[in-house]
């Protein structure tokens, strides 16, 4: 029971972090695109938000500033959805603090 409870706590904590990141990323999108933006994990950054290559670059740089990371070009190319982005940011933040 106790171990299950702990697991739930961790999940909940990660869930909070995830929700917080979704909020932050939506806010950064809104700043770059200059309009309110609704996003979910499945949102496709280029297709659904209609970003051109310059928009994507400005967005990536804003994300990098916010989280104090640099996303290498090959990683950028692999990011398609918001979930991909959150995963990359978490991974790079772990790497930085390690």
């Amino acid at each position, binding site marked *: 029971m106790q171990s299950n409870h702990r697991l739930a706590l961790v999940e909940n904590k990660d869930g909070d972090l995830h929700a917080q990141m979704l909020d932050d990323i939506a806010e950064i999108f809104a700043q770059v695109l200059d309009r309110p933006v609704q996003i979910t994990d499945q949102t496709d950054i280029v297709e659904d938000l209609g970003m*051109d*290559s*310059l928009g994507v*670059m400005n967005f990536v*740089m804003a994300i990098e500033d916010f989280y*104090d*990371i*640099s996303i*290498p*070009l*090959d990683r950028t190319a692999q990011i398609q959805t918001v979930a991909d982005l959150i995963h990359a940011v978490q991974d790079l933040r772990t790497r*930085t603090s390690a």
Partner: protein
Amino acid sequence: MTILAKHAASKLIYDSLKEHGVDPVNVRFDSVLSPTEGMLNGRRTILLGTNNYLGLTFDPDCIEQSILATRSQGTGTTGSRIANGSYDGHLRLEEALADFYGCEHAMVFSTGYQANLGVLSTLVGRGDHLMLDADSHASIYDGSRLGHAEVIRFRHNSPDDLYKRLRRLEGAPGDRLIVVEGIYSMLGDTAPLKEFADVKRQTGAYLLVDEAHSMGVLGATGRGLAEACGVEKDVDFIVGTFSKSLGSVGGFCVSNNPDFDIMRVVCRPYMFTASLPPAVIASTLCALEKVRKEPRLRADLMRNARRLYDGLAALGFQTGPEANPVVAVAMPNTETAVLFWKLLLDKGLYLNIAIPPATPTNVSLLRSSVSAAHTTQQIDTALEMFADVGRELGFFAADRRRAGGVV
């Protein structure tokens, strides 16, 4: 649907240009008369977009050396220097470049594009970090993909952003290589090289400067932006091209790195391509000599650049941030850019059109490149044509914002 159907988006843009009766990437000159004039559709046309900065393509001495070299050594080397050996001229050109830059080592490539592919993919590899200015030339981006280093982009001309990104890498293993350009080919702006050199020293990174558009153009002796900024000692590698100020084709890298020559056996874009033909080597050697002996060429070039830049600004056009031989004018949108470009061409003025995504900040540009060989009259004629087309398209009417862009 063929294998090329994946490029449908590009085809759409290209086809819409052709529907407007323009095909900027397939301009066919009937003949080229001089560094500054060609015949186009039977009309004498001023060439204001050919990067022929010193106008040396028709220099009688360069031409003569080229002819002599072809007569005595043939039309081509028919292979790489690894396989077919070097000609005397390849080595003499490398010695001349090293001497010109006051460097220990020089290496010649078959194009400037290949010089960047070769040098970038060889200097850094897996586990290293390649720091690129966001507005870097395609050859720099392509070179970054040929190697296996981690590629990080920093904001255009921002030493602070670069510093921040290098700081984030603190503690990570691997070499860091910073890549910037002397003059950026689209807007004609220069890198803040002194500040970049400071960042390089503070972070222990290496610094490479691509002087493609600044060699023979900037600096007291024409060595480029590093010379002009007084930071040559901080620059570890300079890459450049023969196809602009030196009026031929080819690329090079110079450096004082003691291990430099290992590149000759590990740098694939150097090893696996045919070396430059004798005619090109000979005219390039002669042109380099002209750069050294005729500072007047640089003075003429900068005077013409200043005249065009100031003239366009006085007409009310939005130009780039600095008066350099690359002079760009911002257009309000792609359609106007295409129309403006076509009307100038019809009048007898050839320059370049640059539309997104090839341009920084998604702006459409008309891009001029000035030559030392332009006469004052040609610059003034070009300005008149700009004024005429600008009036025709309502650039100077009440809506001043049309001429404005984000540059």
